[in-house]
């Protein structure tokens, strides 16, 4: 980069910093009004409850959850564009990395707020920490999102440090005092010493490697929020990759959109060139096509079998009540954008921006359909179709307005392009003066952007390798520990064949004495007796035998005797054991295996010669081999108990790496001796 270009670049990067003109205030005021309206709608919801929203018993999640997934997904763009391009040493990333990272930061914040809007008791969010349940996908979610948020802040902040050291403006007097103080405090005495460069490079390499698996994790966990339920349409193995892909697609589209707007708004046309849009469009095409492929894979397998109720769900989507929205998404959100950016022709930036808008809108629609679809398709509870109310629309509009507002504020404080990173990709100017032919940081519109990497510095590669090795070690150690911790207990036991209603007689106290029972009815024409004795067959219980005799002592046959046991179930109740007819000797008997040890009262009842009669006796049941009642166990119940420890270990490692990167960079920068003169002097020397 020659001197004048660099000056123009620096000027363009810092032009917006600390300078909020009337246009800025006008747009900001308009956006702030929308945000304020969203806040008002939220206040109404807090006061009235969720009855002011469209959610109901069968559609329990609505627009807010769709927003939540959508905004968090969009934030993926920053991670993928910045981290992947950094790791692959793609030179063209320099002017766009800051914008991409800023978009990630702002959308992530809005996304996290969206989920707060959805919960019924936002005042109890602390309970998530106080009573955290490791088995809940919500717990995974807030941990993953917070980790990702911290990672994104670090990822945004670290490359900012050298730029902060320059001060808010090239012209020191033009910058506000407050901003100057902030810049000085946050730059930790950066002056471009080799040690500082090394510290920063190392930290950024760690963060670049870390942010990619983190982003994948966050979006997978978001998908699992749905996929671990048994709702049809959600309980799908493809959900996590589908969400990750959808996040990448909408994220890249969002970056294109932000770049197209920022290019105009901040006058970056010289540096954010059509080739940037072309490269990002390639990415968009690939992701769009991949998303179509994933969707076909999902719907083909489900639609081929048409398992109940998945078939109904697909029908609702393809030709049913949601067909309009679904096909709007497919045509407008996937196919049309693909055609727009894939076909050759003019207006590259305009087409890319339009396609991105369609993709972003389409991906919101897709998330909305995912969230509301299973709820409205409970055939047993046909509910009204979900319709968002003004409160939900107001909050959504406010959330959307918060994104450009946040970006405007962010880039009123910090430079919109990274100056230092541009120097970096230029080939380390302070080590060797680059030959003009070797560095072409700004490809012109006609240029094909060279995707090959420049000779990378040695430090990041080595540190990168170490971090990768560390990450692999963590996974291996974690897996090993997991294996060591739980393998002795792991046994894939099939659910036992025991019936769930086998009783546990020894687990309970003996039945209490029956309370007021009807007085025995004494028939005038027959008498009866009942006796109980242990069965000769071991474990078969007791033989209960009743004998019905006439007044004269003759046997009464063909009389049905019903046997009852007096049990205690919320009071004494006569439980029917069974019934048998009497034989020639007037005897009726059956075998009874009581459920509980203890004293029992057996009653024999019958109707003979037009008169009811009964007899009763008490006995004490001693059950030698009582069966036990055990709750049903899932096959992997014992295995899953140990998983939280593995997850906690991985989480701890991630946070340790965060701290390592941040503290390492700051300490390395702050403790560097001022061996080298200031940058101005350096430039003069050159």
């Amino acid at each position, binding site marked *: 980069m020659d001197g004048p270009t660099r000056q123009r670049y620096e000027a363009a990067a810092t032009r917006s910093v600390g300078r909020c003109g009337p246009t800025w205030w006008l747009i900001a005021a308009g956006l702030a009004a929308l945000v304020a309206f969203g806040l008002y709608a939220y206040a109404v919801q807090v006061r009235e*409850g969720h*009855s002011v929203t469209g959610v109901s*018993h069968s559609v*329990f999640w609505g627009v807010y959850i769709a927003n939540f997934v959508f905004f968090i997904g969009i934030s993926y763009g920053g991670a993928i564009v910045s981290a992947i391009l950094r790791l692959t040493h793609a030179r063209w990333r320099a002017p766009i990395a800051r914008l991409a990272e800023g978009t990630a930061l702002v959308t992530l914040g809005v996304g996290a707020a969206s989920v707060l809007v*959805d919960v*019924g*008791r936002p005042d*109890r969010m602390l*309970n*998530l920490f106080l*009573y*955290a*349940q*490791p*088995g*809940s996908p*919500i*717990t995974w979610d*807030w941990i993953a999102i917070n980790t990702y948020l911290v990672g994104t802040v670090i990822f945004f902040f670290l490359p900012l440090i050298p730029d902060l050291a320059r001060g808010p403006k090239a012209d020191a007097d033009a910058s506000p005092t407050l901003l100057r103080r902030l810049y000085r405090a946050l730059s930790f005495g950066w002056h471009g010493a080799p040690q500082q460069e090394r510290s920063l490079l190392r930290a950024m390499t760690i963060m670049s490697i870390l942010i990619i698996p983190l982003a994948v994790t966050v979006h997978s966990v978001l998908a699992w*929020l749905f996929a*671990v*339920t*048994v*709702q049809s349409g959600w309980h799908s193995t493809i959900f996590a990759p589908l969400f990750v892909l959808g996040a990448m697609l909408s994220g890249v589209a969002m970056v294109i959109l932000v770049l197209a707007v920022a290019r105009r708004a901040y006058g970056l046309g010289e540096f954010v060139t059509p080739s940037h849009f072309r490269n990002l469009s390639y990415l968009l095409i690939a992701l769009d096509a991949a998303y179509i492929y994933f969707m076909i894979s999902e719907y083909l397998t489900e639609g081929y079998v048409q398992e109940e109720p998945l078939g109904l769900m697909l029908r609702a989507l393809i030709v049913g009540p949601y067909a309009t929205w679904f096909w709007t998404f497919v045509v407008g959100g996937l196919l049309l954008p693909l055609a727009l950016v894939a076909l050759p022709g003019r207006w590259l930036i305009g087409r890319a921006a339009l396609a991105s808008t369609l993709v972003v809108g389409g991906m919101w629609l897709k998330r909305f359909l995912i969230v509301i679809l299973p709820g409205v398709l*409970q*055939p*047993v*509870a046909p509910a009204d179709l979900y319709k968002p109310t003004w409160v939900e629309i107001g909050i959504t509009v406010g959330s959307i307005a918060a994104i450009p507002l946040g970006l405007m504020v962010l880039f009123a404080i910090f430079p919109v392009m990274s100056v230092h990173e541009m120097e970096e990709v230029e080939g380390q100017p302070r080590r060797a003066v680059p030959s003009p032919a070797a560095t072409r940081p700004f490809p012109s519109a006609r240029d094909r952007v060279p995707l090959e990497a420049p000779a990378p510095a040695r*430090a990041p590669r080595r540190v990168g390798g*170490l971090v990768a090795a560390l990450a692999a070690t*963590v996974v291996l*150690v974690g897996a090993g*520990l997991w294996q060591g911790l739980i393998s002795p207990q792991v046994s894939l036991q099939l659910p036992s064949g025991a019936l*769930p*209603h*086998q009783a*546990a007689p020894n*687990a*309970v*106290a003996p*039945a209490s004495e029956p309370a007021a029972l009807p007085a025995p009815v004494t028939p005038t024409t027959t008498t009866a007796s009942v006796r109980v004795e242990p069965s000769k067959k071991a474990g078969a219980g007791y033989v209960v035998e009743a004998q019905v005799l006439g007044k004269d002592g003759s046997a009464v046959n063909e009389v049905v005797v019903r046997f009852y046991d007096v*049990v205690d*179930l919320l009071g004494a*109740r*006569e*439980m*029917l*054991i069974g019934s048998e007819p009497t034989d020639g000797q007037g005897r009726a008997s059956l075998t009874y295996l009581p*459920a*509980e040890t203890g004293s029992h009262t057996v009653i024999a009842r019958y109707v003979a010669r037009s008169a009811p009669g009964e007899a009763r006796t008490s006995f004490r049941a001693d059950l030698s081999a009582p069966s036990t*009642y055990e*709750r049903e166990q*899932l096959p992997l119940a014992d295995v899953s108990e140990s998983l*939280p*420890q593995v997850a*906690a*270990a991985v989480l*701890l490692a991630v946070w*340790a790496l965060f701290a*390592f990167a941040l503290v390492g960079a700051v300490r390395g920068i702050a403790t560097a001796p001022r061996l080298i003169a200031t940058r101005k002097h350096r430039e003069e020397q050159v």
Partner: protein
Amino acid sequence: MGSVSRRKVLGSSVAGIGAVAAASLVPIRFEAAAAPAPAKKVRQWVMVIDLRRCDGCKKCTEACQKVHHLPKDTEWIKVQELKNKRGQPFFMPRPCMQCENAPCVRVCPVGASFHDAEGLVLVDQDRCIGCRMCMAACPFGARYFVDEDPPAHVDPFSHPTPQYPVPQQKGTVGKCMLCVHYTAEGKLPACIEECGMYALYLGDLVSDVATNGKETVRLSKFLDENDAFRWKEELSTGPRVYYIAGHGQDLGW
């Protein structure tokens, strides 16, 4: 650059691995909401619903709403009108299934849903954050979100407990708790008490007894002889509500 920083990096890596290893060895125990002290006789409650008898009068729903002071659209026991394969209508009361492997309990991020000693799934509405993950997890649609302040209640000083969730708290989730406040007092749940068709049974798996208030039966025998089944049993949630069809009913989804 060179050995110093490399040693640093390596040292940190070793320290990191050490910390990870140490963390892995510390057993992590997260406590769910404390279960209430077991009663003198620990039951394992189940419900049996004889669909042959249900005539769809919805007295059970009304009784439930009256006892728990619920609004009209909150049907902890919901009488669903379904059709069998031949297109003839039948009724299917749907309470909470009190699943033994309850998905709602597993997905709750704060342990507000828990099993009590008698196997019932209760909700601590003082802890619930209203995320509705349990509603997403429940395959039976048994959970209801309290989306506005409850109607004026007879006892304004009553504070809801998991065992007596009256009045319902706005912004939390409630559900059928098989009238544990009644069974603790020796009374039958309100829906069973009010069912004029005696279609609903309360059963105890431990003493193997069930009663509909009029007849008392041996639970296991009753279920076996009537081909009782559980709704969506294939989802492995272990429902504790048994249905007796007998008339070709298909509960479907």
